[in-house]
């Protein structure tokens, strides 16, 4: 009788271990993403204190008794100590570079700039590049993301679900195949190309149609994002509709109702969770999209919501959370306040999309278990 050779058995054991490790890699990557995005932002989150860097040297000169020369000296000397081991301000005091009074002055200066998550979320002032007084409030950026996402969903949800219904219920098998391929191609268009379309074609269109001075606006970004989100809503929505057993349809048709009545009395209630998941995934895509909104919504930090009609001013430019990271990361030196704050925005986005995707997944699983 033939026996498997030792080498073969050993090789298989190694391969199976490799496979196991690869399987676990997905978990490792999720943790790694979380860890590294946190790690780069840790200075702001944990110490709560801003470093004295070149940008704040100018601010130091505002403290009584510290002139330009001393401020430069402080910054220069700080560069020689390891900021991880010693708190800069305490060091200045110990080394008698500054006296106690100046110490408190600096402390209060710093206190004013201390990172507070609440302040970060709720203030509108986003001046990361200011020499004298940089401020990091992301409220306007959140408003930008929210406005574009909401408006894009107003476009994408009806069109997406309508198309899903048409493809699933109203068209011939041949047309269905073709449409599904078209949707797949639509989903494949890179986001930077969508952004380019927004920047060139949509920009002109909006300026001409609405007579607006500038065409790269909330509306522009929303239309582009809407078109980008439609494919995902259609394909997930169509899956949800296909999951409704044919017996439901036959029973309804057997009762003599029209197809349209069958759709909205039987099909929609039966598939509503799956359709909800489709919409959620569309929202997740809209929130996380970067290049398209970077190019299509303009560059001004601006809250498009206000109390006056129509509450959402779609013809204003905004800047979204994602676009801010993409546009500003290149200019932010590593470990500067600006750099770390951009990573905090990253954490915010990660958390937001995590919640959206998780809920969509739970909803879909709920259907499957029923």
């Amino acid at each position, binding site marked *: *009788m*033939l*026996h*498997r*050779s030792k080498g*073969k058995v050993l090789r298989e054991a190694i391969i199976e271990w490799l496979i196991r490790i690869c399987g676990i890699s997905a978990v490792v990557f999720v943790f790694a993403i979380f860890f590294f995005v946190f790690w780069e932002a840790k200075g702001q989150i944990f110490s709560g204190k801003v470093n004295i860097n070149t940008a704040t040297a100018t601010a130091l000169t505002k403290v009584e008794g510290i002139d330009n020369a001393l401020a430069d000296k402080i910054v220069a000397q700080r560069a020689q100590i390891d900021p991880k081991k010693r708190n800069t301000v305490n060091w200045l005091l110990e080394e008698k570079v500054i006296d106690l009074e100046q110490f408190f002055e600096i402390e209060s200066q710093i206190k004013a700039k201390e990172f507070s998550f609440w302040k970060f979320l709720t203030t509108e002032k986003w001046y990361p590049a200011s020499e004298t007084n940089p401020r990091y409030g992301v409220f306007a950026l959140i408003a930008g993301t929210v406005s574009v996402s909401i408006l894009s969903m107003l476009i994408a949800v009806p069109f997406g679900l309508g198309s899903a219904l048409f493809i699933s219920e109203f068209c011939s098998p041949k047309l269905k195949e073709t449409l599904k391929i078209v949707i797949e191609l639509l989903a494949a268009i890179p986001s930077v190309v969508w952004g380019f379309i927004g920047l060139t074609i949509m920009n002109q269109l909006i300026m001409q149609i609405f007579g607006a001075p500038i065409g790269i606006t909330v509306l522009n970004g929303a239309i582009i994002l809407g078109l980008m989100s439609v494919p995902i809503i259609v394909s997930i929505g169509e899956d949800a509709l296909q999951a409704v057993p044919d017996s439901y349809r036959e029973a309804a048709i057997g009762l003599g109702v029209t197809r349209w009545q069958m759709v909205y009395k039987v099909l929609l209630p039966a598939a509503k969770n799956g359709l909800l998941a489709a919409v959620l995934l569309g929202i997740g895509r809209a929130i996380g999209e970067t290049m398209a909104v970077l190019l299509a919504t303009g560059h001004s930090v601006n809250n498009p919501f206000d109390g006056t009609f129509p509450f959402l001013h779609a013809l204003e430019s905004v800047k979204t959370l994602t676009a801010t990271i993409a546009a500003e990361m290149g200019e932010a030196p590593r470990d500067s306040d600006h750099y770390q704050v951009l990573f905090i925005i990253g954490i915010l986005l990660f958390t937001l999309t995590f919640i959206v995707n998780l809920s969509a997944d739970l909803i879909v699983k709920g259907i499957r278990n029923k």
Partner: protein
Amino acid sequence: MVASIAKLKVEDLKVAYGDKQVIHGISYEIPPNEIFGVIGPAQSGKTSMLRVINRTIEFTPNAKVSGKIEIDGEDAFRMKDVYGYRRRIGMVAPLPVGLPLTIYDNVAFAPRSFGMKDKDQLDALVQKCLEQAALWDEVKDRLDSLGTKLSGGQQQRLTIARALSHQPEVLCLDEFSIAIDPVTTMKIEDVLKELRESMTIILVTNLVQQARRLAKRTMFLLNGELVEEGDTEKMFSGDADNPKTNEFVSGAFG
């Protein structure tokens, strides 16, 4: 007739999937070189029993097995080389499965995976197995066409040829005739009668008459319990020890 030493000895075998107990402790012995029939209605644990015998039940994550199986006096569960052990047991599933390979490769698949590389040796083995399974004459001119393109009955005989390809000592057939026509069934029954000379055969069957035609001894399983085991003629003669057996073989239920 009691053989000198049992080929296969099962002691107090229990199987559960999660919380659901499907076999409640059965014991029996199978002497070498005979056909051992297993009958019983659906859900009585017949397939699970076979999966324990060739230890593929280990691929089912939540299955729990206790008890003991001895092959030639050796403890099967303690054998280190599980793949080597499985090769001593041939298995034929209820539905014919032609692997999506050529007919030749279907049969040569197992020997190759154990390191048989010599072309002449393989050719000879493939021919022998296909002949034993009464399929050679029908396929000898198209050995390189796909196994999946054969008819159901031919695929089932291909499955048997494949099971023979690793030269097993025990051949298990699990309701092999469920998806094939009566003519092919009779052909395979003839095959089994010949194979009996060289190996022990466990025949799980849904046709009680098939057990009567082929098996020397027969076991009746019901809901995972062994109701009766004994000489086939006695069990089918109407005066079996257990009245349930009489009812079952006469078609009262099942």
